[in-house]
């Protein structure tokens, strides 16, 4: 009990998921609420004790002991009330001897089980996302509400309902076995990619909350790939994709807050360490027969990240990867992105032709991507008046400020 300095950045968030996971293993998944309450309580006591007596040498072990003892007390008290003294208290698996040192190691297994529980197939996608953020990643209801532009009470209700569903289904705290594992793993990755994308999405809402979402999603994927069940090519591909995209976070807006397209970004501001880590993950992702959509998206991201300047970008390769994506997931947004790549690879006239095929797309009518892409191609053809009109249309449709600032600038004819 000697360290006087406050704890490391994000310490509570990191510990929150680990503690809830370890306690849920001990208490059983139907006591998820008790596990969470015990962790809240341990944090509250840390707040009151550490500033007076110093931070313990092993703050993680201190928190675990405190939370575990609290949960044991509650369980015993409940057992007494129900007149079955030996009930829950006896069922509550005591922590293994020397658990403090054990806890020092990464309880990756428990954390993975917790993620699988939160992404249970009985839950809707929004419920999985919400529960994962709250229970496995230590986010608060207000933070989740801010990040997803909804109300705190909606988030709270969703959590209550999701937990009830898990109890009713008797959802176990374990890794699915055999053939079920693959499908369940995909559901977990889907949630983490959704969390990342929401965090990475620029412009609207609370920037800090979003950045935290993206960072936490990366961390959880990194955690998964440390587990034997998670050493899968498409896990590596998802990690690579997230890291490539993260590497551009600092460079994608300029001093005016305008969201810059990749070709206008200052590549010196790209995070080289993230890119290097992404490249290693992408190399690992190649071991295995399955080519997932994450592989294709990571491949596209890599083409940008590894080009020393925009002119060196391998656009034909990007078009090829988009061809494959379109074949699997023929969504209009994917086809639009492909059209932009076609324009870079084969010239703006080719882009306009492909964009023409998307003109009636219902999915693209209400967003700015289509007019922005048309504007870009027209501008490159020297048809500046038409380009400006398209940029104006795009600016009106842009739903977030950072994109609007950029589009309005182009509509004015500024570079």
């Amino acid at each position, binding site marked *: 009990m000697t360290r006087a300095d*406050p*704890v490391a950045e*994000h*310490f*509570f*968030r990191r*510990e*929150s998921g680990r503690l809830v996971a370890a306690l849920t293993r001990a208490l059983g998944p139907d006591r998820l609420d008790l596990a*969470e*309450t015990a962790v*809240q*309580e341990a*944090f*509250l*006591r*840390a*707040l*009151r*004790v*550490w*500033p*007076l007596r110093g931070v313990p040498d092993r703050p993680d072990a201190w928190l675990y002991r405190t939370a575990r003892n*609290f949960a044991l*007390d*509650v369980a015993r*008290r409940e057992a007494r*009330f129900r007149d079955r003294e030996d009930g829950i208290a006896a069922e509550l698996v005591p922590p293994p001897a020397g658990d403090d040192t054990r806890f020092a190691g990464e309880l990756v297994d428990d954390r993975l089980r917790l993620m699988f529980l939160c992404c249970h197939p009985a839950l809707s996608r929004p419920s999985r996302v919400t529960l994962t953020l709250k229970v496995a990643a*230590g*986010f*608060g*209801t*207000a*933070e989740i509400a801010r990040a997803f532009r909804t109300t*705190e009470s909606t988030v709270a209700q969703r959590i209550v309902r999701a937990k009830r569903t898990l109890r009713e289904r008797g959802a176990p705290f374990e890794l699915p076995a055999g053939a079920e594992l693959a499908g369940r793993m995909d559901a977990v990755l889907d949630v983490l990619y959704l969390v990342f994308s929401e965090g990475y999405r620029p412009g609207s809402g609370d920037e800090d909350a979003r950045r*935290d979402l993206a960072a936490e999603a990366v961390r959880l994927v990194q955690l998964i790939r440390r587990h034997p069940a998670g050493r899968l090519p498409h896990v590596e591909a998802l990690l690579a994709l997230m890291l490539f995209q993260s590497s551009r976070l600092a460079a994608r807006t300029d001093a005016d807050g305008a969201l810059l397209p990749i070709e206008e970004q200052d590549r010196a501001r790209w995070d080289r360490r993230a890119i290097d880590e992404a490249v290693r993950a992408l190399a690992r992702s190649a071991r295995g027969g399955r080519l997932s959509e994450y592989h294709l998206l990571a491949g596209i991201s890599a083409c940008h990240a590894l080009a020393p300047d925009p002119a060196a970008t391998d656009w034909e390769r990007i078009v090829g990867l988009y061809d494959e994506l379109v074949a699997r997931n023929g969504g209009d947004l994917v086809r639009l992105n492909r059209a932009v790549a076609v324009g870079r690879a084969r010239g703006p006239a080719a882009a306009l032709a492909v964009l023409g095929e998307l003109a009636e797309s219902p999915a693209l009518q209400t967003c700015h991507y289509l007019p922005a892409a048309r504007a870009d191609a027209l501008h490159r053809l020297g048809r500046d008046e038409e380009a400006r009109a398209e940029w104006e249309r795009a600016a009106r449709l842009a739903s977030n400020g950072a994109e609007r600032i950029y589009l309005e600038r182009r509509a004015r004819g500024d570079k």
Partner: protein
Amino acid sequence: MPRYMVLMHESDDAWAKLSAEEKQRMMEKYFAWAEELRRGDHLRGGDPLVRGGRLLRVAGGEVVDGPFTETKEVLTGYFMLEAGDLDEAAALARGCPALIHGESVVVREIAELSEDAGG
């Protein structure tokens, strides 16, 4: 110098609603507050209280045990301060971060028995 108890009460689940990140920021505030009290040589101790407990009372002429039910206002912990008077103690307690995370704070002077006894 008189001593004062700063008693912290929680009345809803405000604490549970905070994210782990916000809780950690709250702890930084507790560190800063404790440091400030130490600098002024006001801090004399403190502890969090474990939830639950026993209620002992007399019923039918006998002491009975419980049941203990948590009241709406739960005492979660205390700090002990030394200050010149109640106003100063209350001013110091104003900085208590428990107030920020939704708890109420009661400041009470500890009766010094030796003085009462004229000693």
